[in-house]
């Protein structure tokens, strides 16, 4: 997700190639090639330019609908839909079985196609296996010198991360398991927090945790772009 304005000019992008699981896009205006995963122009007149990233989440439609009832949703192209070219609902299962490209540095601590939640802050990166998060949510951790909390949504699949320092105070979180739904509570004040990182009750009500971008990725791919990544481990 990138802002498409570079040096005051709005660029229009086209798919130009697939590069190691991520793709290359070409802008109509200069013909430069940009790498999707980094937003950087790797060839052409705008080589070296960096697109500004746009913060985004990956969540289930149910969660998004509830949070953004006034939002709009991209519609399918009828021709493509009729021709059955869109992914089937079980696409993740299918892709999970695909082979991994030769030539990638294979780190065997977990399966290459294990899903990890990748967090990169200030040059430090950590990969949290989804399976670990599903065993224990929230996860309290430090990425470099940034204190973060990762939380699994009610659907036990969507993940969000936030900085857990509020007004200079570092909070610890836990999940209340009585009753249903998402109940993230901080140990310091007992305030409850929504999956959007906003305190809904308690002394900190109204406060918003700073969102931290997470990338859901396959382990081998995350490691390819973050070779020094730490792999989070439940001890």
């Amino acid at each position, binding site marked *: 997700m990138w802002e498409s304005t570079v040096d005051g000019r709005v660029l229009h*992008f086209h798919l130009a190639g697939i590069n190691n699981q991520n793709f290359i*896009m070409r802008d109509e205006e200069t013909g430069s090639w940009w790498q999707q995963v980094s937003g950087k122009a790797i060839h052409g007149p705008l080589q070296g330019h960096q697109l500004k990233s746009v913060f985004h989440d990956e969540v289930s439609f149910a969660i998004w609908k509830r949070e*953004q009832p006034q939002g709009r949703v991209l519609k399918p192209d009828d021709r493509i839909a009729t021709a059955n070219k869109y992914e089937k609902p079980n696409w993740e299962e299918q892709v999970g079985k695909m082979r991994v490209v030769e030539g990638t540095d294979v780190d065997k601590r977990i399966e290459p196609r294990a899903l990890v939640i990748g967090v990169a802050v200030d040059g430090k990166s950590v990969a949290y296996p989804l399976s670990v998060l599903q065993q224990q949510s929230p996860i309290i951790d430090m990425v470099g010198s940034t204190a973060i909390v990762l939380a699994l949504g009610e659907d036990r699949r969507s993940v969000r991360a936030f900085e857990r320092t509020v007004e200079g105070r570092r909070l610890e979180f836990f999940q209340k398991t009585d009753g249903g739904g998402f109940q993230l509570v901080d140990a310091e004040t007992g305030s409850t927090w929504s999956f959007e990182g906003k305190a809904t009750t308690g002394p900190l009500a109204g406060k918003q945790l700073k969102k931290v971008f997470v990338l859901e990725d396959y382990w081998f791919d995350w490691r390819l772009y973050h070779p020094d990544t730490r792999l989070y481990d439940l001890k």
Partner: protein
Amino acid sequence: MPNLLTRLSHWANKHRKLVWLTLLLLIAIVMSVVLTPVFLIMPFKAQTSRTLEVAYVMRRWSPVVTVLASLLILTLTIRLWLGGRWWSRIVLLLLLVPVFAATWLARQNHFEWMFNPLPNPAYAKAAAVRFINDDDRVLSVTLGNEAVAYPIRLMGYHHVVQDTVGGTPIVATY
């Protein structure tokens, strides 16, 4: 100038073999400048930055190179056609087919054949959506006061969708 052309013409007549060789060389250049990037950027193939650089340069120049080479090829083909035997004329015709195909292909984006772009994306209000299930995953962007969801099942096909959210032009990618 006409003198030079006549001289070249006579020379070419005497050296048909050389002209054939040049023709074949030009055809090889056209095919390789167009097909090499296709093979270098195949999905699921490991790529280095060097291969990408080569692919970029070839793709960048192939529209021009193929047109110029095609003109030369046509000239040489005409030269060889005249005074050529029937079977050599058939060969010449057959050789022209891949040349024109490659020249045309140099101006196409075959990735967009595989993954059609979405030039005029349409959106539905959240409540009106029927084509996405509750447990389907979406990429969600909120800018200014506007929230947009890009279903991953759709983005996994189109890969690139241009949009403006909260007044900011963006390119949604997956």
